[in-house]
């Protein structure tokens, strides 16, 4: 003390407090709060696909999805109408991409972004709808 040094105990106490507060800060700031974004996007995808699945077809087949997945030609013909329909169903701030056995439609999916997805099995294969916030 006489030589201008802090007592060792004070230094240790301060360091200990720093360590404890550091750990607390790591827990509270480090872990991002779960926002439910993924669950909400999954719900959007599931709902949109359910609505499409139950819709009557435009031309032939049992349902709209069955009609779209029938063949590559049917998919190309229905593609524009399908995009229009999904855009009308989904909220405006949500982008989508739909994958069918005969091709995909919608927006290209950006990388490193939270998405939600839903898959429904049709007679011609799986149809997957992916959605994300614009």
């Amino acid at each position, binding site marked *: *003390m006489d030589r201008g040094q*802090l*007592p*060792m*105990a*004070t230094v*240790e*106490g*301060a360091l*200990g*407090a720093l360590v*404890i*507060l550091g*750990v*607390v800060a790591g*827990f*509270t700031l480090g872990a991002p*709060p*779960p926002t*439910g974004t993924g*669950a*909400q996007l999954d*719900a*959007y995808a599931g*709902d*949109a696909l*359910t*609505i499409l699945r*139950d819709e*009557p*077809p435009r031309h032939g087949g*049992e349902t709209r999805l069955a009609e779209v997945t029938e063949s590559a030609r049917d998919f190309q013909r229905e593609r524009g109408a399908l995009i229009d329909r999904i855009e*009308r*169903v*989904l*909220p405006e701030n949500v982008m989508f991409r739909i994958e069918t056995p005969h091709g995909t439609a919608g927006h290209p999916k950006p990388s490193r972004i939270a998405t939600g997805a839903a898959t429904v099995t049709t007679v011609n294969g799986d149809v997957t709808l992916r959605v994300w916030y614009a």
Partner: protein
Amino acid sequence: MTRGQTNLVALIAALVTLSVATGIGVAVADSALVDERRAADERHVATALSERLVAASSPLTNRTNVLDGSALDGLDTTDLRREYAVPDAYDVRLARNGETLVETGPARDGMTIRRIVLVERTQKRTITPSFGGGNDVSLPRRTDRVRLAVDPANTTVTGVRVNGRVVLSDPDGIAGTYTVPVPRRETVELAFVAGAALEPGDVTVTLFPRRTTATTLEVTVDG
């Protein structure tokens, strides 16, 4: 002696600092845990309620994710609590496109789950076929049932076929009002079996086409 006392004061100061830091840490962690648990409960209740609202077995829906417009208009808070088993501890608000439909209390913040639904409303449309080319008529809209008012002036109608299938038949003649179920997913052609050509006004057909609009159902739960 002087040296030893200084060390004691420093030690006490250090211990106090450490205790305060530990206390703050525990308090922060505890409040974070409580908040998180409350948010998780709210999210759980909101998700479960939204699932039950749009399920095919829900009293509000016609099919999965297709809500009945008039049932939705008639929904009130007691229905919500009784049919969907919302715990009393939670306030619930249902909104459509930001417009509150029903709320059990001031659920201003809290967890919101949005579901995409179609709202289906049944309309009524009446046509009077002119029977220009034979005794059949194609329905202009898809419907799940038709109401036929048969009152021929000069002949008797002995049967009605829907897409070739007999749905009404009476050799003595059909007259009056009948409700007939028809296929919902195909274009429907009604054929009337009659002794002579039917005149305009002999038959009135009422259709019940459904109009659906896509909308967002917001379920907010505040604990």
